[in-house]
């Protein structure tokens, strides 16, 4: 049973799926992310926005284990909870995660990168698309289901001997792939190499591939970059489907404010590695600091003038 919600706008405070606590990432002398804290609500579409170089992708890389944060904690919470006791025990006990039936807490900063999608259910896409270009679209989606299939193939031994259990599992994996190909309108291209797809199709395939890992949280790094308005609209629909029909929460980095404002329940704004705003799309939109950051205005008073100008 999930706890009843006070108001939908507060989900990230009441039932956080992911919480980032005092995250700091330094590269040599450069502080890319500075003491950042925010939460991602269960079932929310959360947007992480900010000007270029604000540290958004660095946050993603910390979330998904590609970077080890210099300081701070990143917690994924699965299931209904309660999480606090488990979290405290895991944290002080030096554990990476603690699971109990459906519930579980995962300290992502302690987990190696490949364990994060597998255990904590965090999948991601990349800003500069990373597909397996020389493999077909279908193969890309099968690779995404590697861990499940590995078990089904008896860690390869059963598969070499051709045991029927693996055949069934593979059939299932293909069905799942086909489902996501339908959702992303790529079914016709299933047997084409991924490197042959158009840019927009590659972006969709990357999302489909991430969804094939069965994630609880999907992190999208600029999914609308380079898409035309029609493709953008399709993308919005796809993200909504993912959230509404699969219970997967979405965290996205995006520059296209049209996309952000239309689909986000919750927006976190970064500038120079520091959080400058956090709230619903509506509140963030009108935040003078955000506008200043985007328009590059030094003076806050001046920014407020601009806000009034926008509002009128």
């Amino acid at each position, binding site marked *: 049973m999930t706890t009843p919600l006070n108001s939908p706008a507060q989900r990230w405070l009441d039932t956080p799926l992911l919480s980032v606590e005092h995250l700091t990432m330094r590269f040599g002398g450069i502080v890319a992310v500075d003491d950042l804290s925010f939460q991602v609500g269960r079932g929310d579409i959360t947007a992480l926005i900010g000007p270029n170089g604000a540290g958004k992708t660095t946050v993603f890389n910390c979330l998904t284990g590609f970077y080890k944060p210099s300081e701070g904690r990143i917690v994924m919470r699965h299931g209904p909870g309660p999480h606090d006791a488990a979290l405290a025990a895991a944290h002080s006990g030096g554990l990476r995660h603690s699971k109990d039936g459906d519930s579980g807490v995962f300290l992502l900063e302690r987990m190696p990168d*490949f364990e994060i999608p597998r255990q904590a259910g965090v999948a*991601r896409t990349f800003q500069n698309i990373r597909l397996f270009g020389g493999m077909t679209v*279908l193969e890309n989606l*099968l*690779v995404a289901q590697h861990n499940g299939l590995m078990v089904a193939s008896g860690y390869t031994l059963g598969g070499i001997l051709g045991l029927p259990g693996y055949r069934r599992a593979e059939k299932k994996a293909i069905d799942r792939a086909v489902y996501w190909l339908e959702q992303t309108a790529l079914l016709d291209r299933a047997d084409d*190499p991924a490197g042959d797809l158009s840019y927009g199709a590659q972006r969709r395939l990357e999302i489909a591939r991430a969804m094939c890992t069965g994630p609880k949280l999907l992190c999208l790094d600029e999914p609308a970059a380079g898409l035309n308005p029609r493709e953008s609209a399709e993308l919005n629909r796809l993200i909504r489907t993912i959230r509404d029909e699969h219970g997967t929460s979405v965290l996205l980095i995006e520059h296209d404010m049209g996309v952000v404002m239309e689909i986000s329940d919750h927006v976190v704004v970064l500038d120079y590695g520091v959080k400058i705003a956090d709230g619903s799309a509506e509140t963030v939109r009108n935040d003078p600091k955000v506008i200043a950051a985007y328009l590059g205005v030094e003076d806050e008073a001046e920014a407020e003038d601009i806000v009034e100008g926008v509002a009128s």
Partner: protein
Amino acid sequence: MATASNIRPGPTRAASLEQGAFVWSVALADAAKAAALAGILGFFFIGMKTDIAGDGLVLSYRWAALGHAVLIVFLGRLLLDALLGKAAPVTTQMLTAGIFIAGIAGIMTQDATGGSLPARALVGAVLGGLIVAVLYGVALWRRRPAPARAEATRQARFAIPIGIALVLLALTLPFLITTFLPGQQRQFIDLAILILTYVMLGWGLNIVVGLAGLLDLGYVAFYAVGAYSFALLSTCFPFIGFWSALPLAGMLAGMWGLVLGFPVLRLRGDYLAIVTLAFGEIIRVVLLNWVDFTNGPNGISGVPKPTFFGLEFSRGEGGFADFFGLEFSTIHRFIYLYYIILALAFLTNFVTLRLRKLPIGRAWEALREDEIACRALGINTTNTKLTAFGIGAMFGGLAGAFFATRQGFVSPESFTFMESAIILAIVVLGGLGSQMGVVIAATVMIGGIEMLRHISFVGQIFPGVDPVQYRMIIFGLAMVAIMIWKPRGFISRRNPSAVLKERKSIGADLVSQGEGH
């Protein structure tokens, strides 16, 4: 003088020449430049020779040979320009070809030390004619229309019948040889065994380099571990039969693959390459110097020959021939060895093809395409690389064990870096990841080089010239030429491991070569 040919631009060098009409003055200037360069490069090597005399060195001069080399390069470059470079009229082509042939024939009458004059000229003309014919063939091939996509899929469709035909050929080959070439049966079956050994090694390395995209320059280490494991096991513990020692040797090599692989597989690209090379050398040096264990440079001899369910291939009572009521012949043992390596190679191929369609194989290929994306999908890349390394090493070890039993003798000098380089060359020339490509490359390169061993008849015409010593130069040049002609190897299309509706092969330009990109 074939020695000068390494400075002659390869056939496809002409690809970068701008299109346009053939102009004599330009072509002559080109040829003159090439000839001048040949003169410079050959000055100290062809023009002079140092020899040990007494307790010092003396210098002798061979200006005639240098002149011939320069002339060949001049004529050859002219011929290349006319045949491959620009659109030259047929008369020009024929003229340059004629001059080239005449030049070679003329040189032959000068250079060689024996045989009658007309005979030498004739051989020269034939040799020149052969070169012209080959170049003309290349020219024709290059002018053919570009293959359409449909043709590529048609080729893919032929793959299965061709494969079946090849399997049948491989299964019946010893009988074909004994039936049709009884005089040289031993020699040809030996060659087939050698080629199959390289096919197996190529297939083993293909897992590591072709599928997982890990550049391994020390593969021969596992070949050596397999050979020595087998040799030591079967000589120290004679009660372990061939069929138990064989898998043990394979497992030991696989274990070594895991042990060596574990610390180094997180290195990227070329760092991995140099570390594997280092391991290869370390193992060889240890084998060479750990005399108590390996008998050092003398190697281990008396490695037992395989038996057929306990039957030895020996003359007399209780031998294979006696048991089956056949007339004893030494060829039986070679045929048996042939079938053993054929079975091992088939096993390697079967396992590899199976693995490609399993999650582990797909993870290897995904790793080659993009390691970071793999990790983002929850694939443990270290373990995945290790399995590739370990399985590749295991097959290398099995091939090594076979090598030990075939030779009856192992010594460190069989496991030099050059061996690793040749196996890698077979994999790359064949086309990374392609099983059929390995077969083609091994047959062309190993078969070719062994065939060159048998061109000693040329030496009968020209006493004092030993053409056999040129075979490694030809081998090296062939490697260069094939790579420039087909940088992706003979078979460059990738076959998908899973199909929804229609099987389409994937062009090489999309497939990554792994690590470092």
